[in-house]
């Protein structure tokens, strides 16, 4: 870890040294001009309550916000397939498609068949259009049907009934039925070996089959969030039972199973199923899929995929999707090599491993004409959320944290606009940790609360608290004269945390707060976070759209983990009904109660009301401090690739690309499908 970190920063320094001087200025200037010419308009009126303040790129088709139409609704009767399939020994396309195929609207033009997509293996969820029973609209708040044509949540929120489309098939032609969902929910998630602890969403639940096309999830307690969960995580909630049951103790005699698993070189059936479904072993090429692409060959260095001949989606002219015939995904261990390969046109789609800091290098590569560099926005509310540990063992420190004026002082001491210019070329947004603008709970004032740069106010607030510089070193001491030092431990991963915190420490030192930074690795971060040993830490604030907001990761002590370690003792107290942990103060207790009600309520208006209350509390009290968010995410595509929106929103919440339908992306003519067999 240490070695690679050092090496990464050197590579970046090199890029910067060579580029910042001559190039970055002009590149950035170009971009900003180009960006302001892309008009945005309100697209929110098609959502349920119309209270949406978010604006969406005009380029996005309206259909991306609405439930998909089917062939019969649009009167499509003729279906066609990729010429690559003509020579195959397959049933005709009409028989392979479901009874009433789903019609997907491409970005602009109807595509053409052909081509092989080159990606890096970490894009395994972002390009090969993965499919679940439900999906999320491009607005990131509306749940849409997908493999299921409809769903119904009972009024008490305890039962979710799903109805699958008729005639869906796995990529080997085997019919897709309710059993494929029951297998995951009952046989894996409720299997003690597979999941020693049942995940929160599945607790007290079971899945029941009504017919091959209809089944329901039923829970002991109201669980309305299951709908959001499926819309987001649905592709992991279905597996081809006819394949995986051969490796499950409920379907195979235990002894036979054990010897079979051992022969294959695995230590347990759990390990095998995990590795197989997460596409990490040679056997991952065996099970069929519902996604746009089927793996045909897996080696440690490369995955080869070809189009799924039974894919259930078509374009508005009746052509079966996907347009692209094949995918080759390489295992590339070094992120720097990924950036270099992206910049030199050796990958046709790349974003997952690219960073804001890579933009100058990529822009340099764009001049060759082989690639286009699109600038999307990450949905992270802020790239680095500063977390106070309110339950730290140092009581003097925690009582200081508990002072609202202290937190406000630290927030207004930050020059977020300068951070934005230095790190993001001015293309991020200075923000607090609050909902994404697309959210029904978003209130703009909550995002801007205490984000203005006012070091004088910070100083006077700190003076009020009695934090004075006694020994004349420019840094403040506690009122009793003891030195005040805060150590911020963090892991430099995913978002530009090191440079953000470097700047933060400069700003805080300017107002006299002695802040020390310490980079830790994953294992140490995890261990110290769970033990509540860190005085302060930082993480990127995702899980901020309507899909995830009900979990209230950042705004109430109901969740803790390596990424969220502000109030472990209060979380434990809450989870165990007071058996362990510490009882939180009344104001915090209230946050927990709101959050519990929000999670369980089936009334959408009540949910929004409670959500806003929680977010308001954070805007007023600054339980966490935000920096810069909605930051630019580079997306590199081949200049021959069409159908990719110029602007998009990038993150785990919306599954990166799923709303933009990668199955409709296509190559303009002249790209060979040489990997197809």
């Amino acid at each position, binding site marked *: 870890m240490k070695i*690679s970190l050092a090496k990464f920063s050197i590579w970046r320094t090199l890029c910067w040294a060579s580029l910042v001087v001559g190039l970055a200025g002009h590149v950035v200037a170009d971009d900003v001009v180009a960006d302001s010419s892309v008009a945005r308009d309100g697209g929110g009126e098609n959502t349920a309550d119309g209270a949406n303040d978010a604006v969406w790129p005009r380029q996005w088709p309206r259909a991306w916000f609405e439930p998909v139409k089917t062939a019969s609704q649009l009167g499509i009767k003729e279906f066609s397939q990729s010429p690559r399939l003509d020579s195959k020994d397959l049933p005709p396309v009409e028989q392979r498609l479901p009874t009433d195929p789903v019609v997907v609207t491409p970005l602009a033009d109807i595509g053409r068949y052909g081509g092989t997509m080159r990606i890096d293996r970490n894009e395994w969820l972002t390009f090969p259009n993965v499919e679940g029973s439900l999906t999320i609209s491009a607005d990131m708040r509306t749940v849409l049907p997908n493999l299921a044509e409809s769903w119904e949540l009972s009024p008490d929120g305890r039962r979710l009934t799903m109805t699958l489309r008729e005639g869906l098939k796995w990529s080997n032609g085997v019919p897709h039925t309710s059993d494929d969902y029951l297998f995951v929910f009952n046989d894996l998630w409720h299997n003690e070996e597979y999941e020693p602890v049942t995940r929160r969403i599945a607790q007290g639940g079971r899945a029941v089959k009504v017919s091959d096309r209809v089944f329901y999830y039923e829970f002991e307690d109201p669980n309305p969030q299951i709908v959001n969960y499926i819309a987001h995580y649905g592709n992991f909630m279905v597996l081809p039972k006819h394949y995986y049951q051969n490796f499950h103790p409920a379907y195979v005699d235990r002894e036979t199973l054990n010897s079979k698993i051992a022969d294959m070189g695995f230590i347990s059936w759990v390990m095998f199923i995990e590795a197989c479904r997460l596409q*990490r072993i040679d056997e991952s090429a065996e099970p069929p899929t519902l996604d746009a692409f089927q793996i045909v060959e897996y080696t440690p260095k490369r995955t080869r995929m070809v189009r799924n001949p039974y894919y259930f989606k078509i374009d508005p002219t009746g052509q079966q999707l996907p347009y692209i015939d094949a995918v080759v995904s390489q295992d590339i261990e*070094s992120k720097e090599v990924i950036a*270099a390969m992206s910049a*030199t046109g050796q990958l046709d789609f790349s974003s997952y491993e690219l960073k804001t800091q890579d933009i100058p290098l990529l822009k340099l590569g764009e001049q060759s004409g082989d690639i286009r560099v699109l600038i999307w926005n990450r949905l992270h509310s802020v790239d680095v959320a500063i977390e106070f540990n309110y339950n730290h063992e140092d009581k003097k420190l925690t009582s200081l944290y508990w002072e609202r004026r202290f937190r406000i002082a630290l927030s207004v001491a930050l020059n977020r606009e300068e951070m934005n210019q230095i790190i993001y070329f001015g293309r991020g947004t200075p923000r607090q940790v609050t909902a994404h603008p697309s959210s029904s709970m978003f209130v703009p004032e909550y995002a801007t609360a205490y984000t203005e740069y006012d070091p004088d106010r910070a100083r006077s607030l700190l003076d009020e608290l009695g934090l004075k510089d006694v020994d004349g070193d420019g840094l403040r001491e506690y009122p009793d004269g003891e030195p005040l030092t805060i150590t911020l431990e963090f892991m430099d991963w995913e978002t530009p945390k090191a440079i953000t915190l470097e700047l933060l420490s400069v700003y805080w030192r300017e107002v006299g707060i002695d802040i020390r930074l310490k980079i830790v690795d994953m294992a140490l971060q995890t261990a110290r976070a769970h033990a509540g040993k860190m005085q302060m830490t930082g993480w990127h604030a995702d899980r901020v759209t309507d899909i995830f907001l009900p979990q209230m990761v950042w705004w109430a002590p109901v969740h803790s983990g390596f990424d969220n370690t502000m109030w472990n003792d209060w979380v434990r107290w809450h989870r165990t009904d007071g058996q362990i942990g510490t009882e939180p103060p009344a104001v915090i207790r209230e946050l927990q109660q709101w959050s519990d009600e929000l999670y369980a309520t089936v009334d959408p208006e009540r949910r929004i009301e409670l959500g806003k209350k929680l977010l308001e509390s954070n805007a007023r009290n600054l339980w966490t401090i935000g920096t810069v968010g909605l930051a630019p995410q580079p997306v590199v595509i081949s200049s021959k690739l069409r159908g990719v929106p110029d602007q998009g929103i990038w993150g785990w919440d919306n599954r990166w690309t799923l709303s933009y339908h990668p199955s409709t992306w296509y190559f303009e003519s002249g790209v060979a499908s040489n990997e197809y067999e």
Partner: protein
Amino acid sequence: MRSYVIKRLIGMVPTLLLISMIVFVVIQLPPGDIVTSTLDRLQAQGVEISAEQVQNLRAQYKLDKPMVLQYLYWIGNFVTGDMGYSYLYSRPVNELVWERLGYTLLISISALLFTWAVAVPAGMFSAVRQYSVGDYVLTTVMLVGLATPSFLLALVAMYAGYEWFGISIGGLFSPEYRDVPWSLARVGDFLSHLWIPMIVVGLGGTASTMRILRANLLDELNKPYVVTARAKGVPPIKLLIKYPLRIAINPFISTIGLLLPVLISGEAIVSIVLNLPTTGPALIQAIVNQDMYLAGSFLMLLAILTVVGMLLSDLLLAWADPRIRYE
């Protein structure tokens, strides 16, 4: 001779045993293990986990036993050729190790040959022509090579390879040759990619090798037997190679064993930068993720290579220099 080799082989056993213990303990020292990351996943999904449940999970991964038992289990299987299971890659360690080890050795050995091919003639030249312009130029170039970190050289070489020779970035093969069976064309492609890591890994060692050779030769060149040979009219090149060089080369032979670990550790960083399928990147990943069987097995294999390398170099030395005897 035979008894010497046997004695040395027996002597290796306690050394390797000690190394294996240290390796196993050091890998386990940092906080957390492979279960920790599983816990994080569960906790991210909002589950609070009791100590009892953590124990169950550890048992599933066979991590609940005391460290001594885990060690015995690992080393016992290791001796019989079963290196355990990699949690990180979800496959037996044996499968992962061999291919990567092959590439590592290939790169290390070719780098070693490169080092010698450059350093020996250069050392000879600068010893014979001491304080000449050529001596200074060669020394300067070599020292620049020594002083430049290998990852930086790798970046520069990668850039140069792409910009001027059109070699694809990353890896030991062009994309079209990556997963096809060996053929003449594939060997050619491989060789066209091999030179970057070979030079980058090898260059670091050339400066010191050259300087040592130069110093050794200078010691020998003024000895009476050289003067005598020269007086008798032995041609200068023949003289140089046949007498002083044979003596001056001894230190290299005796350090072959030591060069291996140096090359392999230098190779790790370069391999990450160049995206090579060698042991280095996998070893670092395994250590970071505390994938103990994979990391332990890699380190043990490297230790074995080093110890065996030392023995080989001692044997070579005796063969090359008849003055050395086994006692």
